[in-house]
């Protein structure tokens, strides 16, 4: 609701999982995702007094901070090294071993394909599937809603081809 500013904790509880998922898809490993997610919410906490709900939805405001933090992180350490580490395999802390089912393995495989996408395509897919509208995706990526939609569909096509290649 424009002009309505919820308590920061409400925002934090509502968005933590989505921001973490987005960040994890960008940086690859659980440890890095925790670091970057922490930075995102600490920065957001510090900037919250200056956040104007009229200017951006909470989602686009937070995801913009998350995107910048993830980009900073990737630039700082070099994406290739991290990606190699992630693909080579990061031990996953499983909460329930019984959940280690085929579906979950497929999710991991699909997310690995997302991690290998070119940067902007990866961002479009990650933002969109973190629940943002195309208008919000465009706002964060600095493009129009239509351009965001085109970028997203191009990324989907690349993913589809990559998935077919993996299956073949």
């Amino acid at each position, binding site marked *: 609701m424009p*002009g*309505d*500013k919820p308590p920061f*904790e409400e925002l*934090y*509880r509502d968005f*933590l*999982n989505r921001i*973490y*998922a*987005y960040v*994890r*898809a960008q940086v690859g490993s*659980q440890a*890095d*995702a*925790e*670091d970057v*997610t*922490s*930075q995102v*919410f*600490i920065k957001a*906490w*510090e900037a919250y*007094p*200056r956040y104007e*709900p*009229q200017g951006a939805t909470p989602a686009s405001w937070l995801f913009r901070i998350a995107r910048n933090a993830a980009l*900073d*992180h990737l630039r*700082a*350490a070099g994406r290739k090294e991290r990606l190699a580490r992630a693909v080579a395999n990061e031990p996953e*802390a499983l*909460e329930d071993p019984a959940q280690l089912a085929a*579906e*979950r393995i*497929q*999710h*991991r495989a*699909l*997310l690995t394909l*997302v991690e290998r996408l070119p940067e902007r395509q990866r961002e479009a*897919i*990650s933002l969109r*599937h*973190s629940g943002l*509208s195309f208008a919000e995706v465009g706002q964060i990526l600095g493009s129009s809603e239509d351009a965001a939609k085109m970028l997203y569909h191009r990324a*989907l096509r690349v*993913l*589809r081809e990559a*998935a077919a290649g993996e299956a073949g």
Partner: protein
Amino acid sequence: MSEPRDRLEERLDQAFASIRPRRGFEDELWTRIQARRSPWARFLESARRVQLGPALGGLAVLLVVVVAGGLLLQHGGPHASSAGSAAEGPTRTAPNAAQPNGAAGADVVTFGPLPPPPQPTGGYAGPVNVTAVTASVAVPARLPVTRYREWSAAQADAYAAGLNAQPAGPVPAGALGRYAGKDFTLVLYPTDTAAGTEPRVVITPAPGALRAAGSDDAAITTAVTDYLSRFNVAPGGGAQSPSVARSGGQVLVRWALSPLRQGWLVTLGADLSILMAEAPLPLSPEVAFYATPTSTKQVFFGGPSGGPNVVLDTAELVYVVASDGTYGYFEPAILYSGRFTQGGVTYQKQVLLPAVH
């Protein structure tokens, strides 16, 4: 997402929904965020919790006495100068210099110019037109200021090396360094004026590295103290009695250092394993006394700023963390605040002014 969706998009939705942080991360991070709140925010909140609001003005003077007394007890007296050399130590104001509030200058020993107190991170950050200041605080003629030398990256490296921990990137923004030991990681931070925290270390043990032997407060406190001792940061030197709070399946152990300083904060999981510990780094503080000005309110009326109008109707004396890069300071400041409404939203404007000069 109103457009028709294909199977791949549905799988992507499910895949992203399946990504969750590990159990406990949400509360750990929230604890860290809470710990970064400025000392005055923490104080104001605790005051609100016990509904002290209207009495705060009167309480402020008492608070100064408590803080000043605590600092003096902690650091050994008004003229203790434990770390400064002759060249850089406190300087005595000329005996005949005229002092405000009618105070004689002979007993005023200072460190020289202090860095300005950082502006509060809570509340409205934009410019305002102050139309009136209706609150004031009575302060003594002199107030103590504590100074300590800032931690350097080399000191952080040496501290970690003493614990057999090696540098392990990436270093979080603003940190001095990040280090990994056999069953822990350390991140060392310098003074953070925005968060209102002195130099500190955040210790993250490996999962299950240490559990309290019992679930009673005494056993938990003992286990946590022993653990902090391994890192040479056990509570001491002015720490208040520990408080043990249980919330959302976690246990929080805290030693406050003074009414406005965070002190030590340790989070344990439901299984009583230590999840994270945050502790002040050892400092070599020295104390000096500064004279207080007769009035600071006139600085608000420097002309219209183009911002909304506000009346500053609350004033409190607080201690804040400031830094000039070489030294960190615990210095007194007066926190003025007032509320205004803009675009249907009510904001709070807070302004900190130095309480000494």
